[in-house]
């Protein structure tokens, strides 16, 4: 249900992916699977298809979402590439236009980056 929801929302039309989905559904709902498998142009029964193997490389998280907080209060969210360093994250957070109003007239005491979770910017003044 989750996957179908995601693909629907994304308006996925890729034939190869949808074919794999049909095979994954086949043990559970064989009739609809058989019908769609035939519609995809296959002449053999879906029962003899090959179970689709997953590939780890597509499962890597490419992006991470972090909450940006000031003195412990979360103010907005930011997305970073998974490979970003703490220094890069800190820099980007401070430079973001939404951070401006929380930094105005204040002195930054320190910045704490909790990976994959939150960036807390401690200010004084």
């Amino acid at each position: 249900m989750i996957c179908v929801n995601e693909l629907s929302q994304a308006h996925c039309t890729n034939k190869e992916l949808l074919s794999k989905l049909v095979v994954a559904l086949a043990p559970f709902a064989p009739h609809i699977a058989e019908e769609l498998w035939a519609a995809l142009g296959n002449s053999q029964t879906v029962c003899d298809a090959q179970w689709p193997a997953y590939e780890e490389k597509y499962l890597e998280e490419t992006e991470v979402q972090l909450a940006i907080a000031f003195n412990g209060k979360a103010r907005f969210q930011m997305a970073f590439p998974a490979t970003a360093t703490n220094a890069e994250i800190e820099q980007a957070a401070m430079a973001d236009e939404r951070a401006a109003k929380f930094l105005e007239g204040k002195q930054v005491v320190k910045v704490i980056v909790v990976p994959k979770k939150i960036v807390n910017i401690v200010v004084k003044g």
Partner: protein
Amino acid sequence: MEYNFREIEKKWQKRWEEQQTYRVVEDTNKKKFYVLNMFPYPSGAGLHVGHPLGYIASDIFARHKRLEGYNVLNPMGYDAYGLPAEQYAIQTGQHPAVTTETNIARYREQLDRIGFSFDWSREVRTCDPTYYKWTQWAFQKMFDSYYDNDQQRALPIAQLEERLAKQGTAGLNAACSEDLNITAEAWNAMDEHAQQAILMNYRIAYLGETMVNWCAELGTVLANDEVVDGVSERGGYPVVQKKMRQWCLRVSAYAQRLLEGLDKVDWTDSLKETQRNWIGRSEGAEVEFAVKDSDEHFTIFTTRADTIFGVTFMVLAPESELVDRLTTPEQRAEVLAYVEATKKRTERERIADRKVSGVFTGTYAVNPLTGDALPIWVSDYVLAGYGTGAIMAVPAHDSRDYAFARHFSLPIVPLIEGADVSEQSFDAKEGIVINSPVANSAANEGLVLNGLTVTEAIAKTKEYVSRHNLGRIKVNYRLRDATFSRQRYWGEPFPVYYKGDMPYMIPQECLPLELPEVDNYQPTAMGEPPLGNAKVWAWDEKACKVVDKNLIDGQQVFPLELNTMPGFAGSSAYFLRYMDPHNNQALVSNEAVSYWQNVDLYVGGTEHATGHLIYSRFWNKFLFDLGVAVNDEPFQKLVNQGMIQGRSNFVYRVQRTEGDAQKAPLFVSLGVKDQYEVTPIHVDVNIVHGDVLDIDAFRAWRPEYKDAEFVLENDKYVCGWAVEKMSKSMYNVVNPDLIVENYGADTLRLYEMFLGPVEQSKPWDTNGIDGCHRFLKKFWGLFYNMRTDEFIPNDAEATPEQLKSVHKLLKKVSADIPAFSYNTAVAAL
């Protein structure tokens, strides 16, 4: 284009049939996988939604295995013999074969509509002569075999005959009903009748004396659950315990292998524990006790020989032959009366009942270690079938012995330091031993256990008993032989005829011996089983065929066995027959069984733990000894599906005062019922939708409700609900046909799996079906534009998110299916 499930499902069910999609043959190029569902008894009520649960679970597994490249055997059949069809025949006169055929057709129709991947070309029916030929064949083979304990396997009885002729029973270690001592000379001097009687003591299928529940008025033997409080459930007639000659199977011979085999299979710990307890292996000693002032002596079996110092009396089972030998003339009358009274109680009642009763025999036994005189009593808390039918009682350390001692004011001697036996026995097997023996007694010259731990004491005593020949170390099993005769019509006939009281097997080439026609399915006027009503039921030994009974002459024509086989006969080897169901020469060919081996996944209910699952393992081990089965265990992995509980609905009827009795019934909705005095009543769940009652349907449901009035909430009648067992009496049985009709088989399949983990019990909730149906519609929507009929899939590139979504799903489902976590797999889809 809409998701037209009706058309789609009909189309593919037809296509699969035409193309024999699910038909499999042995294919040495592919690895095999054997999935098996416990086959159903085709009842008249048809399927309810609980039945397909196991079938759907195994079907998903089977289909997945095929997608992984395995050659999957997924057969189905019917356990067609049994009591309901016979009872229906007695009530309506319809032949069981006819009603069974009708029921099977209905079952098949219902199953076909759900889209299972069964190989129906391999269908078996236990009532089909081409099937039960092999049930009869296996029985004959069991009759023709004995069990050698040294070699731990079955061997042809001819080998035993040869051995007896050469050396008698010297050195013979075989499973038997009684230990016999016979010289070769004695054997060779016996006539055929005497020799056959000896052999019967060893045969794996044998005629034995067993206690049965006999009801003279009904003229039949009753099963334990047909007897309540000593009278028949049907009619309340008196029932007595009677010894009857019946066919039995020497299952106990296989006890050790049945125990050890559990270590090889992938079953739940709980199921294995149940079987281990049922087999009940105990190691103990058989100790001989002399009788005071007499030449008599007898043996008792005990797992705690170390407590012999605390024995203060002996107890015999009322059925034991010792009772007669050891009762004094003065005590005779009282003892006899007690033994008679016990005949009326079943073994189950005796185990369950904690009321103390017993009679003194008048004689005493001598304690072999202390020399004390121990009074010998008779009591029904000792069972004749376990051990030797006599026990040594140690009231300080056994609760039943304690209750007996208190009741009859017999001495209680504690054997463990600090044990408080003022209120109850001290049953724990720990502590330091005392009074073993009592200080200053002559017994201190012999075995002394004082100061040892219980564990040390047990070991020291065992060694002492065997060294001084006071008895022998013996392994005992609780597992009993199976009673294999039934006084029923609708079952497999025994391929047996009688010359006098001696049974003979009809020749193997003449199998199957087909069930004859009768004009009455009940026991005969003389109390014979129903087959006694058959006219053509005698065996012509010369012509090798079944002939009319009036031709019986005791020379060439003899009477056939009147009993039939029990329900578990047909289900004991069906998993082998599926491998080769049309073979007329053998139960299963060597090629077929070498390829399919045994069952990789067996799906069914836990209620068979000590019945079918013991008998089929025994039967398979026998066939393994015969060289027919190639695997010692029939079922590698067992999965028990949980039950589907019903979701009952209730309406609330306002209680009427006397004056209003004539008025039409008034029902109030759930939200307002507390304002009235109401009686909740179960209502048919099929006329309730989303807990809202279909009022018109309700008025039509019962004649007394046709003018019913209602107090509604927001113009609706809201019903109450509860999760209960799915049962007809609660009107919460949901028929899968209705679901398939309204939503389709694919929705039903998804929904039953989505309800919860396969092995747990879960409540049915028709309200959840919509969710699964909408999911399939959405799925369909990925392929067809709902408004334009356009087929959507194309070569447009997939985005990283889409790839991630699908591969994440594939990873999850690939792990969930082998783990039977179908509910999370469906959620992930």
